[in-house]
């Protein structure tokens, strides 16, 4: 009897967590007019998705988001890796240096938006994907460096020493041993950076134009002028999460596959 109560409570908790996202999925797949119906599934329809990709040009925004998020990660990762490695292996800057990296993360983004806008305008990069990509890369670097620092610290220095006696330079040991061994960490950091850029709203709103908007900006536009178009918002949310889930599952497998260290145990 006690166990039954416990299990009922647990299932209730699971339902509380899982129902909202499932309801979003459901709402995205019924016609807009039935979105607020209390029926579980009144009618199946792809009209929300069709409308998003047709009339609302979500295809473009989707592509914009991918370009910006992917681009920012590709730019940020090498810098972050070099920075994280320097902190991890050579204790560059000591404790104060590490603190400085973390403190970069503390600047309130809202204080950076207008300066960023001013700089980009002087370079004629507002309303352009290039500008937003650069800004996202800059925002990502300290965070990714912090994460990779932890990862590099977990790689035994013996591996680099072995490579150096085997005939590489210190740089060669980093390039041929540390980087390949860190692939799971780089992948994880990359995904996190991708998620942050993908979801970012404030900078995207200020720095993009109607053609260069990203998904969050597009989602916001569905929620403002003519009231909330809940069906389309739901479909947009589903679309927004989709690539993240795909990326994570892929990465998850990659991480789990586990290049465990060939050293002891």
């Amino acid at each position: 009897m006690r166990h039954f109560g416990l299990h009922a409570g647990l299932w209730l908790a699971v339902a509380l967590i899982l129902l909202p996202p499932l309801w979003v999925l459901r709402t995205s797949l019924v016609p807009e007019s039935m979105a607020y119906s209390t029926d579980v599934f009144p009618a199946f329809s792809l009209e929300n998705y069709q409308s998003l990709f047709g009339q609302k040009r979500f295809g473009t925004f989707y592509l914009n988001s991918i370009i910006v998020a992917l681009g920012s990660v590709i730019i940020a990762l090498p810098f972050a890796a070099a920075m994280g490695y320097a902190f991890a292996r050579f204790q560059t800057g000591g404790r104060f240096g590490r603190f400085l990296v973390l403190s970069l993360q503390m600047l309130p983004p809202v204080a950076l938006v207008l300066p960023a806008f001013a700089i980009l305008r002087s370079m004629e990069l507002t309303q352009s994907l290039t500008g937003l990509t650069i800004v996202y890369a800059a925002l990502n670097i300290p965070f990714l460096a912090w994460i990779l620092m932890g990862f590099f610290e977990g790689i035994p220095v013996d591996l680099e020493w072995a490579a150096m006696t085997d005939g590489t330079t210190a740089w060669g040991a980093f390039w041929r041993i540390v980087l390949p061994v860190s692939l799971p960490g780089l992948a994880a950091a990359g995904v996190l950076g991708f998620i942050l850029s993908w979801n970012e709203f404030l900078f995207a709103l200020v720095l993009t134009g109607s053609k260069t908007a990203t998904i969050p900006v597009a989602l916001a536009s569905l929620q403002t002028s003519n009231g909330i178009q809940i069906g389309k918002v739901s479909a947009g949310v589903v679309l927004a999460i989709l690539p993240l889930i795909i990326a994570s599952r892929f990465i998850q497998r990659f991480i789990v596959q586990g290049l465990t260290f060939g050293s002891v145990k």
Partner: protein
Amino acid sequence: MASIELRQVSKIYPGSAAGVKDIDLSVADGEFVIFLGPSGCGKSTLLRSIAGLESITAGDILINGEIVNHVAPRDRNIAVVFQSYALYPHMNVWQNMAFGLRMRGSPAEEIDAKVKEAAELLGLTPLMQRRPSALSGGQRQRVALGRAIVRDPQAFLLDEPLSNLDAQLRAEMRLELVRLHRKLGRTTIHVTHDQVEAMTMGDRIFIMKDGRLIQQGPPLEVYANPADTFVAGFLASPPMNLVSGRLVEVGDGLAFRTDGAMLPIPAAFRAAYAAWAGKPVIFGLRSEDFHAAPNGDSSAPLTLQVEAVEALGPENILIGRLAGAPTQVSARLSRHYSAQPGESVTLYADLTPMHLFTPEDGKAIPRPRAAPALLRRHA
């Protein structure tokens, strides 16, 4: 192919007591030497300094007579086997072993031939496609060794390569490393804290403590003539028995007096020890120098109050005290001799290999050297 020489080498870590101080040593071409010491004594630091992985604070490191202080590790042509094995986890066994040759730009056929040869030598041939994570501890150890051998380096530096293996495998690898050294003839420095490895593997031992070199020499010679109480205690298990007491004159001879025993000093040592008569000294005798029966001229009877008996199988270790003495003494006896805790037994100490140490700094008081026991063969 390489002699290694260290001249006044120091490595100081700022703000740390670790490191090494004023190390002078030289290893001849083709020699197999052991760096022995407790953890933290600086032996691994020294090894890494020779490999060029740590810069030294002072002194010179010479390989083949040339100062290499500022030569990069990859240009020293020395192979290191790390305690952790440090196999590249993203490469299979073949790639791990070939890495060094590929970095040196050897032609592909030569790499393949050399890797195959080393794999054959170490019994790794069936494992070439495996990743390190799919290997057992012993196999990893062999791959690390193979990776070192393939490159045909001037010298091998082994940093506690056996410490992660279980007892049986460790005993096998001891023999195998010695066999490999005999076959390859390369200068080898083997770092360890294990006294069995130190005694059995090397041509010479270098014993280190707190960053300093305490004693060097062939294993049995160091065993027979420890420079101080630290070496006396460290190089055997159970360690040499060390008993505090006083050197006294008895008739025209000398004797060591302590609570519960009076031991005559062998005539051969009297002249050497004469200056210490009347002074406090530390008496040292190894546990295997106690016997159940008198054994030659310099045997002295002793009464041992047995406190514990460790029956190891092949032999029994009796642990107890001389009557009223504060120090515990252990005696190594045949498995046919035993006693019960609480009993008092009479044992005979063979005093020929005895030592005296100064109580102040534990240094051995010089006396005529004992020849190592090794080659006194009698059927």
